[in-house]
């Protein structure tokens, strides 16, 4: 028995992505929402549970309810950064399980690219970091990458391999922002931002939104799409500011992953596809270790030789990830959109064969909050 036994994902969608002129963040959030409802075959007005998080709106669920003309029975605007959305899908499932709502909409939208190109950032400066030229968030990720290289001998070449592999997946996704293949040298030799990270180690800055419709298993069975089920879930945090990440090479994914796998009753070897929040190349290496796909320190070796690229043993970020597909400020919800599509076998050229169990992992802040979800196209027996 799990709290997710009677829940299913009934619809997933993106808004327009990339560079979206003449739309604001609420427009994109709403566009993704109506697309997800339409895909499911549910009238958007049936939504009675609203879930969102935002760097644009102080009360995002209230904003979205007004926009869509909905008066929901239940709302949650969990704020743990980009990890919020995997968390919100779990929170929505709990609300439905407890009878607090029946049709839950989890939505996000951001025009951070056309707003001016910079990362929309509501991070409060901490007095112990702000005087020293701390550049949020890249300084933080650079500090973790440098420490990982020091402790485990992870190489510049291995960081590049993450970006190269992700781009190969993106080349097969028509919606991806960057699709031209790149070489290890192009990644290593792109503009150096903060050692050891170059421009191509960093996620994109795009516009975009995503939405998910979650409802009861019974209801989902009568809708348009093959239901996707949640088997397990976990969340945790180890710090807010990078100075307080006491072990720079171990993230809270070690806790969230353990919880998720235990609840799901599966192990990393059972996962057919992993969608990991890749704000920077180093994320993928850290998360694969912390989630247990390999030993701590072996991440650089694990991703080498095309192991996470098309044709590799573990397909990772099959949509092209935050590095190549889209990254509108907070990417978390897109991990579940792609996981669901892989499980429904809708991914065409990039479809992973025999894909029955997927992992989606959200990251927030500066490797601060981590949320892991295990999903399947079969109900958990």
């Amino acid at each position, binding site marked *: 028995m799990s709290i997710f036994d009677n829940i299913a994902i009934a619809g997933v969608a993106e808004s327009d992505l990339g560079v979206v002129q003449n739309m604001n963040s609420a427009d994109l959030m709403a566009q993704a929402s109506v697309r997800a409802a339409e895909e499911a075959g549910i009238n958007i007005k049936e939504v009675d549970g609203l879930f969102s998080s935002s760097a644009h709106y102080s009360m995002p669920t209230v904003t979205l309810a007004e926009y869509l003309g909905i008066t929901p029975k239940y709302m949650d605007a969990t704020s743990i950064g980009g990890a919020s959305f995997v968390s919100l899908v779990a929170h929505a499932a709990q609300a439905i399980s407890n009878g607090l709502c029946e049709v839950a909409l989890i939505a996000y939208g951001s025009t951070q690219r056309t707003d001016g190109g910079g990362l929309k950032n509501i991070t409060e400066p*901490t007095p*112990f970091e702000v*005087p020293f030229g701390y550049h949020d968030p890249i*300084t933080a990720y650079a500090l973790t990458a440098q420490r990982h290289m*020091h402790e485990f001998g992870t190489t510049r070449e291995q960081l590049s391999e993450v970006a190269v592999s992700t781009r190969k997946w993106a080349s097969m996704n028509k919606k991806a922002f960057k699709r031209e293949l790149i070489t290890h040298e192009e990644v290593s030799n792109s503009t150096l931002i*903060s050692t050891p990270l170059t421009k191509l180690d960093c996620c994109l800055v795009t516009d975009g939104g995503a939405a998910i419709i979650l409802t009861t298993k019974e209801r989902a069975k009568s809708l348009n799409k093959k239901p996707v089920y949640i088997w397990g879930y976990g969340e945790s945090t180890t710090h807010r500011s990078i100075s307080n990440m006491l072990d720079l090479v171990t993230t809270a994914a070690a806790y969230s992953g353990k919880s998720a796998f235990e609840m799901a009753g599966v192990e990393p070897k059972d996962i057919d596809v992993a969608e990991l929040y890749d704000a920077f190349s180093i994320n993928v290496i850290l998360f694969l270790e912390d989630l247990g796909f390999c030993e701590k320190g072996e991440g650089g070796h694990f991703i080498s030789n095309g192991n996470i690229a098309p044709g590799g043993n573990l397909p990772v970020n099959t949509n092209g990830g935050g590095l190549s597909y889209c990254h509108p400020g907070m990417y978390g919800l897109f991990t579940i959109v792609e996981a669901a599509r892989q499980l429904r076998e809708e991914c065409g050229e990039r479809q992973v064969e025999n894909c029955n169990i997927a992992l989606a992992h959200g990251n927030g802040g500066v490797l601060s909050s981590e949320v892991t979800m295990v999903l399947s196209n079969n109900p958990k027996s």
Partner: protein
Amino acid sequence: MKYHKPLPDIKGIGETYWKNLKKGKLTIQHCNDCQRMFFYPRVACPICGGTRIAFKEHNGLGEIYSYTIAHKSIVDGFKDEVPYVVALVRLDGVRGNMMTNIVDCELNDIEIGASVEIEYRDVTEDITLPIFKLVKEGN
């Protein structure tokens, strides 16, 4: 004197820390319940939860836990000073890292594990920043 870089908001339990830096003293909180030191200043010890906490003087010695050399930056006052070093320093005997800049050295000499010592840098009437230098061999 105009100072163009970001300044800390010192309001809070950490104000003592900043005021002592102004006097050229590094003070770190010590927990009288678990006998450990920790950074940054808090009303409760993050190690044991104790509240019998007092600031104690620290000699400003530690080592580099990690660092990055910023080659591009959008931070006011820093963007024209690239490359510069942002480091996390682990002070001797203290739980937690202190973010800082490492100054007055060849960038190639900086490495994780290197010993560092504090240098007090007055930047405004109210603020003195804890900056660090590499400890020269033989000292």
